[in-house]
């Protein structure tokens, strides 16, 4: 389920992803959720400004290598988001975009939604890490709606983030729970943004979105290129060896 956390806000019971049958095809194969976050965290550079989606992306913060100072932005008006609060620190007016209580670090700043999204839209945030339902060969992202007729559409800040943040990283299970490919020639779900994804961290591998196509740059332990290719809807370029 958490691989489908498409968005910065808690999902309702009505989310289509939940209606899929849960299969266990890939259990105990490839990277765990924690490991995906950990792998992504290696690519978060020192001194960068980062916005993390909820679910697995959120976990990236705890794995950023020591010695790197990273500033976390939450689009509801805080730059310099800190850890979860202790009981004493807890303030319902200090929350993140997922509406969970957070803290503010020394050197933080508060601002209103207009200014917060000016920060996003104006290309000031370096990296945003999000989940995905589908990613296309050209880096199109679908992560907000299955387009199902009875779904309540909800987009939050996802479209603004992918349109405005310099680098978009995706953390996602490589396939759906039913084993269907999520990396496709074209997204079949409604798009969040066109040509916006820079890199995909799946449970099986790391893939760069390039002008030449999708380039596999790294494999999880004991995973072969062919194993990944068989679970990908697009012909991958192999940058390993």
């Amino acid at each position, binding site marked *: 389920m958490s691989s489908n956390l498409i968005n910065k806000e808690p999902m309702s019971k009505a989310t289509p992803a939940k209606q899929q049958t849960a299969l266990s095809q890939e259990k105990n194969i490839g990277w765990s959720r924690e490991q995906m976050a950990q792998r992504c965290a290696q690519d978060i550079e020192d001194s960068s400004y980062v916005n993390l989606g909820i679910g697995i992306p959120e976990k990236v913060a705890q794995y950023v290598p020591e010695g790197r100072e990273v500033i976390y932005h939450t*689009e509801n008006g805080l730059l310099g988001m800190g850890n979860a609060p202790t009981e004493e620190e807890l303030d319902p007016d200090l929350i993140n975009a997922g509406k969970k209580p957070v803290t503010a670090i020394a050197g933080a700043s508060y601002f209103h939604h*207009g200014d917060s999204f000016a920060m996003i839209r104006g290309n000031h945030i370096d990296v945003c890490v999000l989940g995905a339902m589908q990613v296309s060969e050209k880096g199109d992202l679908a992560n907000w709606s299955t387009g199902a007729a009875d779904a309540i559409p909800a987009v939050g800040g996802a479209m*603004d983030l992918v349109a405005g943040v310099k680098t978009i990283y995706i953390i996602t299970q490589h396939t759906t729970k039913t084993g269907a490919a999520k990396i496709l020639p074209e997204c079949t779900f409604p798009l969040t943004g066109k040509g916006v994804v820079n890199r995909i961290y799946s449970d099986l591998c790391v893939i760069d979105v390039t002008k030449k196509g999708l380039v596999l740059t790294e494999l999880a332990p004991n995973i072969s290129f062919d194993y990944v290719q068989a679970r990908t809807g697009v012909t991958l370029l192999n940058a390993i060896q």
Partner: protein
Amino acid sequence: MINKIVASCAAAVADIKDGDTVMIGGFGEAGSPIELIHALIDHGASNLTVINNNTGSGRVGLAALIENGQVAKMICSYPRTANSLVFPELYRTGKIELELVPQGTLAERIRAGGAGIPAFYTKTSVGTPLAVGKELRNFDGDDYVMERGLKADFALLKAKQADRYGNLVFNKTARNFAPIMATAATRTLVQSNAIVELGDIDPEHVVTPGIFVNSIIEVAQPQQESTLVKAGVTYP
């Protein structure tokens, strides 16, 4: 003399009319002016268009306003939330209209409305279903959609401190949409945890200058939406 202090939430919302557009501050419960919303429920104005990032949770505050049948249309970015009980049902049965707007576009449209900007261009939503029917335009090689400024008849907001001029400061991320909504509404009504003397708020620290505010009501101990929701409270 300028004195924007009003005795009660009921008095503040008295002029809201059927069919009005009402911006309501808050991102989830943070910044939600729950006492003003409840006064609006008591007041009973209907056929409202409400602008808020969400649709409320449980059966209090914004969700209660919706459940009470007073809202004809929601303009928001994220109508689903963890405790979203009311809106989904009404939406599925066609009893409430929804204009879904990306969160940053929503914020910028409100900011534009308050700043005398009738329309602007943004990359957000280009190539997505939310850009369908909107003017697309290329600037310097990139595509943008045109978005329109948003205004409202009223804004209902919550502040931490206010003075009689209407100067406001907020608490942490409860600031969210309030400062821009204050600029975009014909009348801005604010419940404040405290009313302070002129000059108590340093001019360098004022977040919303009083010019954007019409009525201030002191609500020293506001109710907390999540507490009410947990307790299963229903309003009225």
